[in-house]
């Protein structure tokens, strides 16, 4: 995939000026937040389940090598094969090999972010194998030659008129005057076209939401049923999953599953949760003859034992981006690689390097909403701050920003002067704020206020107010 994260600023600017995108993003702001809040409120045990989900994943990470080996041996005893891929390139090579051995010409695909991460589609195409995305959102963006802009709603940036135009452009064998005015008719059209692809495919590739060590089971969670047709009908089923997807037992999976759908779409349960344990058995009338699991590391093992270990608890629910004011303003593509939003701001520098992805963790208001809603209690703002520190110490921050930060540090080390300066600044901003306590103008920061207003301070500094409230001489250091 072409990486544009280093041009994050230009990307964001273009996204803010894109009226169609801005209209589409209102769906994220409206739908996802309400639905998640309702689902969380309807389950009294939700917060306790979040704690337990995080605890389970922490336990897995602390014993990850052991669990992977147990998982592997159980897949093998189920009659499946496990392939280990240290890098994206290794994973692509292993999958191509499986496809070639199966004599595959077309491959159907369930939704998988790992497949995006390793750039699988382009690679298979170049090798003469046609990949067909079957999740409706993924299918739409594949037709458009785009990448997902959201990890659970990949086509959230596309509107219905665009879908209609794309279907007209590509489905040329259908009558041009067919009924296409309603979303229902577009869905029906896609269903009909993909039905045929499912039945003719040689290999089906899916991702996995969970890998259960106890039983060597891989699990996908979907709403459309495309993942199930992808893995049931072709002769060969390939699961591509990253190593941190492991859970110890089916009970542990059930616990995390309860917070997954509620956090993602606000459903209490997704329509299809499918547990797969190996290939077709004796007497089975359907199912694949071969079952392969490709386990991808791609830098995750480097995060273990570091400050970024917490990030490996992520279950890719998308709640952090659904609640992120930055994502709401610019959408997913501006982040410039596979993973957008707060989780993407933490993962991207890890995967593509801090010199290319370092701007993303800076694109945060540190409002903390992502951490509040993250079902796995990942301290996303803290992790973004770790990247900022690394970026700064690696001298990767832009010169102007470095100068400003240095000046601030100089001032902050001189308390008397700092108080005078902040008092003056607070007073000045208060004057700018006027009656509604917001300003669209900040001296020296015109770019910052172009698309947002700065809430102005109440006219005195925190320290001064602290003193007033606690009586003189409060110790605020």
């Amino acid at each position, binding site marked *: 995939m072409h990486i544009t994260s280093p041009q994050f600023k230009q990307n964001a600017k273009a996204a803010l000026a894109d009226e169609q995108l801005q209209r589409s993003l209102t769906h994220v702001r409206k739908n996802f937040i309400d639905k998640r809040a309702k689902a969380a409120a309807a389950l009294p045990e939700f917060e306790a389940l979040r704690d337990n989900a995080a605890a389970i994943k922490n336990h897995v990470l602390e014993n990850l090598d052991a669990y992977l080996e147990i998982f592997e041996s*159980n897949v093998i005893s189920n009659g499946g094969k496990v392939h280990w891929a240290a890098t994206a390139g290794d994973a692509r090579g292993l999958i191509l090999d499986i496809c070639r051995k199966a004599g595959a010409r077309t491959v159907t695909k369930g939704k998988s972010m790992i497949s995006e991460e390793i750039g699988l589609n382009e690679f298979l195409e170049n090798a003469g194998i046609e990949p067909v995305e079957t999740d409706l959102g993924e299918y739409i963006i594949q037709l458009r030659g785009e990448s997902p802009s959201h990890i659970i709603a990949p086509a959230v940036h596309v509107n219905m008129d665009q879908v209609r135009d794309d279907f007209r452009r590509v489905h040329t064998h259908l009558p041009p005057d067919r009924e296409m005015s309603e979303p229902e008719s577009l*869905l029906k059209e896609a269903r009909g076209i993909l039905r045929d692809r499912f039945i003719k495919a040689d290999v089906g590739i899916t991702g996995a939401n969970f890998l259960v060590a106890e039983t060597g089971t891989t699990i996908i969670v979907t709403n*459309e049923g495309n993942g199930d047709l992808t893995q049931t009908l072709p002769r060969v089923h390939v699961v591509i999953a990253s190593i941190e997807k492991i859970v110890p037992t089916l009970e542990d999976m059930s616990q995390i599953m309860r917070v997954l759908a509620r956090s993602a779409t606000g459903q209490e349960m997704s*329509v299809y949760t499918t547990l797969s344990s190996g290939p077709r058995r004796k007497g089975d009338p359907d199912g694949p003859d071969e079952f392969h699991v490709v386990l991808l590391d791609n830098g995750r093992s480097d995060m273990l034992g570091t400050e970024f270990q917490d990030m490996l608890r992520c279950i890719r629910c998308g709640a952090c981006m659904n609640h992120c004011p930055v994502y709401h303003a610019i959408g997913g593509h501006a982040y410039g690689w596979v993973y957008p939003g707060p989780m993407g701001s933490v993962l991207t520098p890890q995967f593509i390097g801090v010199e290319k992805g370092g701007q993303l963790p800076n694109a945060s208001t540190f409002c903390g909403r992502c951490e509040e809603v993250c079902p796995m209690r990942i301290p996303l703002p803290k992790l973004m701050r770790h990247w900022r520190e690394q970026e700064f110490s690696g001298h990767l921050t832009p010169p102007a920003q470095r100068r400003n930060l240095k000046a601030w540090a100089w001032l902050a080390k001189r308390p008397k002067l700092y108080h005078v300066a902040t008092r003056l600044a607070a007073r000045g901003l208060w004057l700018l704020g006027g009656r509604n306590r917001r300003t669209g103008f900040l001296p020296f920061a015109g770019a910052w206020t172009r698309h947002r207003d700065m809430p102005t301070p109440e006219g005195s500094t925190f320290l001064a107010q602290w003193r007033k409230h606690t009586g003189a001489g409060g110790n605020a250091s």
Partner: protein
Amino acid sequence: MNREFILEKLGRNLKNSTPGKRESNALERIRNAPGGILPVQPRTATARVAHFIEKAKEAQATVAVCASSGVANAIAEWLRSHNLPKEVRTGQDNRLSALHKAKDSILTVKQGPSDGSDLTGVSHAECGISETGTLALLSGADNPTSLNFLPENHIVVVRRSDILAHYEEIWPRLRKRFGKGKMPRTVNLITGPSRSADIEQTLLLGAHGPVRLHIIVTED
């Protein structure tokens, strides 16, 4: 080798414990399989079944209740009310024997996996979960997996006494039946008919899987 490379790196970064300790930690958790936090559910069987039905309907399934001997008639009636041909495909499940013996005048029953041309599939669930109105179906000749996804209409029969409160109750049942650590090839947890919200976040039923899911709870 990729495998050794990855496992060694993991081991190196997990510096606070030994490989032996990690293995025993993992095996112990798998042996104990702690249940975790179980949301409060109705206590009595009657209330649990009522809750199951309510939740399944919330997930846009339709539900009927009948005696196990009345399944063929209940299916025929549902097909008629949806103007569907009285023809279904099903597996070999003994619990559906009343259906297999149904007279052609009531229902035409074909057996075996679907090739995509069937309008209606009938399966028997292993159990239902009241928490979310979810059905658990097991793969095999009794209930071919393709019946769950290819036909436009899916009818699932579940016994009243098999309606459990939590997902966590499914797994001990399967362990008992298939052996510890063993699973059927596929377990499908199904909650309502297939759907998509990928076009402008508008929720539409019947994406790739069934457009309609009808559940028949049998009194036994």
